[in-house]
């Protein structure tokens, strides 16, 4: 495809095939530009796998994995791994990234690179302290009066 510009002045033949594409046909890696279609049986198997993984996802919710693996948030981590597994099944088989051209694969990966970049934005929240803003509203006394008598705050209001 890189040679398209150099051949732009040549005419196409009746089938829409220009000399460039014939040149490509001579090359051994020509098949890289051809989209391969998997057999329908792959889709059936993928669907069965997806349903199985859905059952795994729901089942995991009722099991406290931290009892077996002492890592904080292990349930969330495993749930996300299963979700990524399911997602890659959909992307590779259903969206046919498997049989697609290299350019398509690159494009598809770009979208997920963006998500990684966004993780960098997330780090920003972890590195700087939150400024007192709307959060202060949750604490009406504003942190000034630590020994405030109870009668002035909650109890008198609710016991009426």
């Amino acid at each position: 495809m890189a040679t398209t510009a150099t051949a732009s002045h040549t005419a196409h033949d009746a089938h829409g095939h220009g000399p460039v594409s014939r040149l490509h046909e001579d090359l051994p890696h020509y098949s890289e530009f051809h989209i391969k279609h998997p057999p329908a049986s792959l889709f059936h198997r993928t669907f069965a796998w997806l349903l199985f993984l859905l059952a795994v996802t729901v089942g995991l919710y009722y099991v406290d994995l931290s009892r077996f693996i002492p890592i904080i948030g292990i349930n969330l981590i495993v749930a996300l791994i299963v979700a990524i597994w399911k997602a890659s099944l959909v992307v590779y088989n259903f969206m046919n990234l498997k049989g697609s051209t290299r350019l398509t694969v690159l494009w598809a990966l770009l979208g997920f690179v963006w998500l990684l970049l966004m993780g960098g934005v997330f780090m920003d929240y972890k590195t700087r302290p939150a400024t007192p803003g709307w959060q202060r509203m949750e604490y009406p006394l504003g942190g000034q009066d630590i020994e405030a008598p109870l009668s002035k705050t909650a109890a008198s209001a609710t016991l009426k």
Partner: protein
Amino acid sequence: MSLRAAIAGNTPSSSHGGVIEQPVSHQFEDIDQQNECYIVGMWTFLVTEIMFFGAFFLAYSLYRTLYPATYLDCHRFLSIPLGATNTGVLLLSSWAMVMAVVSAQHGRKGGMIGWLVLVLLCSMGFLGIKAVEYSSKFREGLWVGDFNYAKANREWIKEEKGDEGEPFAQTPLAAIPGAAPMTGADTAKLYHHEAKRVFPYYPTVQELAADYRYTTPDTKELTKTEAGVYTSYTGPPSAVETASKRAQLFFSIYFGMTGLHALHIIIGMMMMLTIIGLRLKDHPSVTLDYMPTELVGLYWHFVDLVWIFLFPLMYLIS
């Protein structure tokens, strides 16, 4: 798209193992380049969609990190059976969609329309279940614009425990005779106990103190005296308000993400109807070329993909 080439006289033939021979538009070198161009174009759109939903997932992650107890608390209002059913329905629709694409590739009219109708039925089922879920949220007082955490808890207790469970926010101490002459610390403990009973995932004193860190540099004083923290700074009504505000935040994110996803489902249904209509009329853009179906399929799988992540993140918090 390739309609121009189709009208120019190319007719479908079954030369490549039963696969239709797509016409090549004049601006492309060959059919491989044309197909790649279409698919890369669609993926470019999908990348913008990933960015779109990605921002929502960022908001979700940020607040889940800040308020884990709130997320744990709020997920009990969502129905796991309904969410799981919806996931299954979407997976079924994705499978039907690829089968529709296979039928389109082989030029099978009946198969293609049949599978697409199945996709449509699945999406209607999905929206139907979603409507049931949303309407129960409206009823319980969890809708963003009309948020009532105490009411939602009452409803939840009624459904889960089968009793009328006294709502903490309204009559916290009324049931206890002689409660008035208590010390501040005792009242605080009582309030906390009561809050724990009514709100199962009520933030602990330590969690409240950790949040307080953000509002003042003086944290030593606070973590030292539990009751002092509790009565002076996050006294019971304001603690309930805190829980309520954060729950509202969770439901804003919930309605934002699932609502946007439902909008994508509706748009997908319109695309599906268009393809079915074109195929019924034997329009050359879908009879001679499977690409329109393939591209709608890519979009549909993406919508499925979003839900695959939404379901465990929203419904299955443990």
